[in-house]
Every structure is written in structure tokens, then in C-alpha cells.
């Protein structure tokens, strides 16, 4: 018993509907006719994420990945690949189609993902420090403590080109060098694990899956800048991540990888966890520091920057979880290695939490410079139910909506800025034709207005005003003057707000006005919502020519707004209709119109 090879055939919806079943059967018969039933198993898989190039066939254990395979190819695959061991090159995925710059030689893969931050997530048991150590964990710390001077550590990080993954993209090496340059004395290292962007969970997953990578990085940073104390600021809603961090900290202390005289090097470092109440603004660095100090989490004007005057007035470096998770790898593999991955200005990889109208939602890590198209269609498996892509939002409530014309733009800090969005922390929400743009902008403004701390007027008042205009437009009461006002307010907020929350809160509005003006215009001039999301703008009517009088709509209507005899065309009473849309859903004859 035991097969020698396995032919995996994608059984995901996209591949199956593209002759996938015929292909599966053809492969099975080819295996039988070639007398290989005892040597080869043909198996169906779930979606392999490459739906655009389906149907997909993968051969194990060789890991050969064939794309756009037709039933006629089955015989060739079995005769050539299985029997003779010769790869069928015409069916291979053509790597040249991908423009990703991974810059590292000797790596040959069809996959678009490239895991540095998530290197141990899903591989090790996060509760076992030994497994982290076996995967070269604490090797960077070893190297740093025993072979490098603090300045050399800072230089190596600078050389890597790593930039902050918490939103602003500030060069990490530079930030460290500011704090390192401050006179010796009490300094602090803080990890920002607040992750307030709705739809983002990269940092949570990293901490849950690989907590030691962050502890190791913080200790290295402490050594580099001359800090002996670190804080991890994490929201209380992340109980599992907190629990795993606590376990990890206890284990590191036991091993002497945290605490006094680490590994006998003479360097001491301690880490404490501080819980946040989950306010979005507490993720902003100055508000976060205030919160750790036990004060109300409100932003302060900068300068002074935390690297000069931070926690309790001492030099403090604040880094995001993902930024930190890169550090051990940069130090073991070298800054140069890291700097070869990505684009000219943005090095390394980025983790995204892919959600929304996408087939394969999940956590992905791709080299900087990967395009939205590759992320959405080659990794994410495309848009759900074969609908059309409308926009993608990066950066959560601080980001902008990216329209289809930029699907092929390589993603990095600069390019996203140019097209009116931001990298943000890594939430990536995909919208399809059924999403209403003004409505989504309203959702984000609703969030930021709620989360504004109220300290400064541009954010507090401007945000509220923008939200009011958006509500008005979605209700069908918008005017063209509203659009102009929104544009002005957006600019003012971006310029005059005190912190990043207010400065970026208008991005969803600005970007959507820039790329989706036609949808705003439709709402205002034609009182029409093409996505059918703005209730007030909808009219339900029944097409008498199509209605067969099945009574399904009348039975489902909660407002008793539909009248009509059996087998006679039905009619909706506009005055009674509450626009719930149930008749539209239930009619099998597409006789109910929504406009």
C-alpha cells in the first residue's frame, strides 16, 4: 500500500466550471489505462488561488504546477510526467509573467507569496520556545550581542531599507539612530500592537503564531538604542495573542533570553505588556505613549518626536509588530539580502489581510512591488461569484479607494501615495460592482468620526461635516455644491489636523471623488444608486410583462405592499413599500425591477 505520486486537480468553483470535472475524470481514466492505479492517486483539492489560470493540476511530490490544463492534456501528463518523469513544459506557469522583484537567486517558485514576517506562522507551535529556537530563533540576538556594536546593528537595519509597517513608512534604521544618538540614560523600546484598523489582523496573527520573533526583535532594538526596558501595547480584545505573548515572555525569562545579563553578555532587557482599551487613536504613537503613562490617550504635537522625548520624557522608539518581525531575519541574513527584495524605495515584503468580496480571504505576504492584480486574482482567487472588480481600499479608514485602472501598479509606499491611498498597516478590502462608493466612504467616515478624540477642530468638526454630506447624498438629498464643500473640507482636514487620524480621515472621500465622481453624480443628479445599496434611492416595480402571478413576492412582503390575483400581474403600492428588497430576491422570473 502507498502511492508513489499524486495528481492534484483543483476542485474549486472556478476550475470546476471550466471543464475541471471532465479533466479530473480524464486523468483518472488515463491513470487506469496506463496501469498505474496502485501507484498514482488522483485527488481533488480546494481552490488553489490561481483561478484566473485554471484549471490547475499539481503533481506531488515533485510540486509541479500546471496551469490552464484541458481534458485533452490528461493523457500527456500521465504518459510524459508520470511514466517518463518529463515535465510538460508547455503547461507550466510562465514565471516571466510576474514582474515581482524577489532579487534572490536560486529560488524557483510559481507562488507569489514570500514569507519573511510570517516565516514561522503556521509552522511552529507558538507556545514552545524550543521550536522557535530550532528555526534559527534567537540566532540574530546571539550575533548582535556577541559580535556587533550597537551602532553596527543600527547600520545594518539602515542598510536593509526597512520602513515602518505601522502606517507612515518611516525608515526604521533612521528612527533607531535618532534614539541611539541621545545621551546614555533611561530609554525605552515600545511595540505598537494596537491594530485599530477595522479589517486588519496581521499583527494579531503574527503575535499569535510567532510571539518570540517580536520579543527577539525588541531585545535587539533595545541593545541598538541603549534601552533596557520594553513595552508591548496591545488591545485587550486580543486575548489569545496576549496569552501567547505572556507564555513566550515567561519562557524567554526562564532561558535567560530576557532579564539580567542575557546569555552572559552583560546586556539586560525586560519586556512588559500593557493593555489598551481599543481606541483607534491610541495606535497613534504620542497617544499610545500617553496611554502607557496612564494618561488619557490623546495625541500631542510633534516635535518633540518620541525618539528624542517619549515615555516619561525619555528617548523612546516605537515600532509596529510587523516592522519588528522583520528584524531578526535582517540581522541573520544581512541588510543587503533584505534590500534586494522589493522596489527601489520600498524593501522587503508586506503582509496584507485580504478581505471583502474576494474568493480566498486570508493573510498573505508578498514582496513590495507586487500588483493588486496579482494579489486579488492570482492569490485571492478573484472576485466572489464572478462579479466585476470595482475598487480596493488599502490603509483602512486612513486610506483611499483604488480603481481598476491601477490594478497593474506595483504596490509600494510611493505608488500608493501617488494614487491617493496609503500603505497603511495592511488591511486590503476588495469591493465589487454591488458596493456603493459613497456608501463605503460614509462607512469609513462614520468610523473616524466615532474614533476622533476631539482634541482638534479640523478633525472633530470637519469629519462630522463630511459624514453629514455623505449621509445627505446617500439619502438622495445631495447637491453639486455639497461635492465642492466636501473637497474643501477634505483638504483643510488633511492640512490642519493635529494627528494622522484627522490628516488621513478624508482620504476615502478624496480618492472616491477623484475616481468615482460619476457615482456621486448619479446619486445627486439622477437620484440613482447603481449598486442598489442606498435604500432611499431605490424604487421597486413589477414588470407586468414578466410577472406570471406566482404570488411569491406578495407572500414575502413584510409591508403587505403587493397586491394581485393569482396568475395575474402583481403591483407594488409605492406608499406602503419599505424597500426591504425581499420581493426582488424572491422573484424567480426577474419580474421585480429595482432602480
Amino acid at each position, binding site marked *: 500500500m502507498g502511492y508513489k505520486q499524486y495528481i492534484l486537480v483543483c476542485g474549486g468553483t472556478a476550475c470546476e466550471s471550466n471543464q475541471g470535472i471532465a479533466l479530473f475524470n480524464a486523468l483518472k481514466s488515463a491513470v487506469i489505462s496506463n496501469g498505474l492505479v496502485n501507484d498514482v492517486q488522483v485527488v481533488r483539492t480546494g481552490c488553489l488561488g490561481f483561478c484566473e489560470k485554471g484549471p490547475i493540476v499539481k503533481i506531488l511530490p515533485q510540486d509541479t504546477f500546471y496551469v490552464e490544463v484541458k481534458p485533452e492534456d490528461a493523457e500527456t501528463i500521465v504518459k510524459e510526467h508520470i511514466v517518463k518523469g518529463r515535465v510538460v513544459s508547455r503547461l507550466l506557469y510562465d514565471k516571466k509573467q510576474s514582474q515581482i522583484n524577489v532579487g534572490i537567486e536560486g529560488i524557483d517558485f510559481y507562488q507569489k507569496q514570500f514569507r519573511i514576517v510570517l516565516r514561522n506562522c503556521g509552522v511552529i*507551535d507558538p*507556545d514552545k520556545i524550543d521550536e522557535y529556537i530550532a528555526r534559527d530563533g534567537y540566532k540574530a540576538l546571539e550575533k548582535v550581542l556577541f559580535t556587533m556594536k550597537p551602532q553596527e546593528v543600527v547600520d545594518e537595519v539602515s542598510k536593509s531599507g526597512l520602513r515602518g509597517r505601522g502606517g507612515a513608512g518611516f525608515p526604521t534604521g533612521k528612527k533607531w539612530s535618532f534614539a541611539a544618538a541621545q545621551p546614555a540614560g533611561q530609554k525605552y523600546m515600545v511595540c505598537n500592537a494596537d491594530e485599530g484598523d477595522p479589517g486588519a489582523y496581521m499583527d494579531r496573527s503574527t503575535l499569535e503564531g510567532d510571539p518570540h520573533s517580536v520579543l527577539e526583535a525588541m531585545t535587539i532594538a533595545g541593545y541598538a538604542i541603549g534601552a533596557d526596558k520594553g513595552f508591548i501595547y496591545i488591545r485587550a480584545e486580543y486575548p489569545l495573542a496576549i496569552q501567547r505573548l505572556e507564555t513566550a515572555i515567561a519562557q524567554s525569562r526562564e532561558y535567560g533570553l530576557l532579564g539580567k545579563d542575557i*546569555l552572559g553578555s552583560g546586556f539586560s532587557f525586560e519586556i512588559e505588556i500593557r493593555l489598551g482599551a481599543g481606541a483607534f487613536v491610541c495606535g497613534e504613537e504620542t497617544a499610545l505613549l500617553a496611554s502607557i503613562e496612564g494618561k488619557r490617550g490623546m495625541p500631542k504635537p510633534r516635535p518633540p518626536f518620541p525618539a528624542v522625548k517619549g515615555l516619561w520624557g525619555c528617548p523612546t522608539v516605537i515600532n509596529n509588530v510587523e516592522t519588528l518581525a522583520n528584524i531578526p531575519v535582517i540581522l541573520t541574513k544581512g541588510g543587503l539580502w533584505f534590500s534586494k527584495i522589493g522596489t527601489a524605495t520600498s524593501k522587503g515584503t508586506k503582509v496584507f489581510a485580504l478581505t471583502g468580496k474576494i474568493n480566498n480571504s486570508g493573510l498573505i505576504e508578498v514582496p513590495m512591488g507586487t500588483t493588486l492584480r496579482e494579489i486579488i486574482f492570482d492569490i485571492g482567487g478573484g472576485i466572489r461569484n464572478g462579479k466585476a472588480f470595482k475598487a480596493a481600499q488599502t490603509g483602512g479608514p486612513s486610506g483611499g479607494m483604488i480603481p481598476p485602472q491601477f490594478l497593474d501598479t506595483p504596490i509600494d509606499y510611493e505608488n500608493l501615495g501617488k494614487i491617493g491611498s496609503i500603505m497603511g498597516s495592511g488591511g486590503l478590502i476588495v469591493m465589487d460592482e454591488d458596493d456603493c462608493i459613497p456608501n463605503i466612504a460614509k462607512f469609513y467616515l462614520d468610523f473616524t468620526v466615532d474614533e476622533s478624540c476631539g482634541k482638534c477642530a479640523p478633525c472633530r468638526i470637519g469629519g462630522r461635516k463630511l459624514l453629514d454630506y455623505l449621509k445627505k447624498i446617500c439619502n438622495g438629498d445631495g447637491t453639486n455644491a455639497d461635492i465642492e464643500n466636501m473637497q474643501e473640507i477634505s483638504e483643510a482636514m488633511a492640512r490642519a489636523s493635529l494627528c494622522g487620524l484627522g490628516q488621513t480621515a478624508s482620504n476615502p472621500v478624496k480618492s472616491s471623488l477623484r475616481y468615482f465622481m460619476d457615482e456621486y453624480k448619479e446619486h445627486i443628479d439622477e437620484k440613482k444608486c447603481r449598486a442598489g445599496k442606498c435604500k432611499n434611492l431605490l424604487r421597486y416595480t413589477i414588470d407586468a410583462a414578466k410577472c406570471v402571478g406566482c404570488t411569491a413576492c406578495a407572500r414575502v412582503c413584510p409591508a403587505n405592499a403587493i397586491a394581485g390575483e393569482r396568475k395575474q400581474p402583481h403591483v407594488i403600492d409605492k406608499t406602503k413599500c419599505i424597500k426591504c428588497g425581499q420581493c426582488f430576491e424572491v422573484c424567480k422570473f426577474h419580474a421585480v425591477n429595482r432602480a
Partner: protein
Amino acid sequence: MAKLTLNDLRKLRDEKQKTMAKRDPSHKDAQIIVGMGTCGIAAGAKETFNAIIDELDAKGITHVLVRQTGCMGLCHSEPTVEVIAPNMPVVIYGNVDAETGRQIVHAHIIGKTLVDNHICDKPAMDIVR
């Protein structure tokens, strides 16, 4: 465990690397690894984990180690389970409820055949190590 010196740490790493490479902690030659991040647990990973352990017990199988790990990134297919068995390719199964977990024990571990309709692609090559 007492505090480590540099040499202790290196020795520990070497030892652990060997056992992990052999994939043979305490005479077990196969592993079933269940993704237990927040998304996995929300999707029922704990039930799956328990079902697998119970089924292995019921069948008197002692050579399989059941482990937990963090999120593999395949949130659309949680719970996810990775199976490493001798002379078989390493595979990740998605949407593994308790029943599928038991099926993995029967088909994959005992029967040495892959379970239909649940295989997912490994998200990426292991480049950093």
C-alpha cells in the same frame, strides 16, 4: 530549565533542529498540525483537534504527534490541518471539521491516501530559515 549560556543556546538549537528534521520527537514518525490562531479557533479548530486525538486513541495509533500552530494565512478555509506522514507528501487540508479530522486519520494516516476535496496549497516556499 536554568538560564542559558551562549553555548547552551547553540547546543539546544542543534538538538532541536535534528529532532525537527527527523520529525521524530519521542519515536513518533508522523505529525498532524492544527492551525490554532483566532480565526482557526473561531472556525472550530479545537473540536477538530480533539476529534483527531480521540480518533487516534480509538484506533490505538501511537506513532502520530498532534501539534498546534498559528495561522497559516488560509483564513477562507479554516480550520486548517497539516499532515506530515512517512513516504507521503506534506499536505495542508482546509475546512477540516471534526468529521474530516477523523477522515484524515482513516484515509491519510491509516490508508495512506489523500483525502479528497480538502487539500489547500501551501501558501509559500520556506525561504527564511
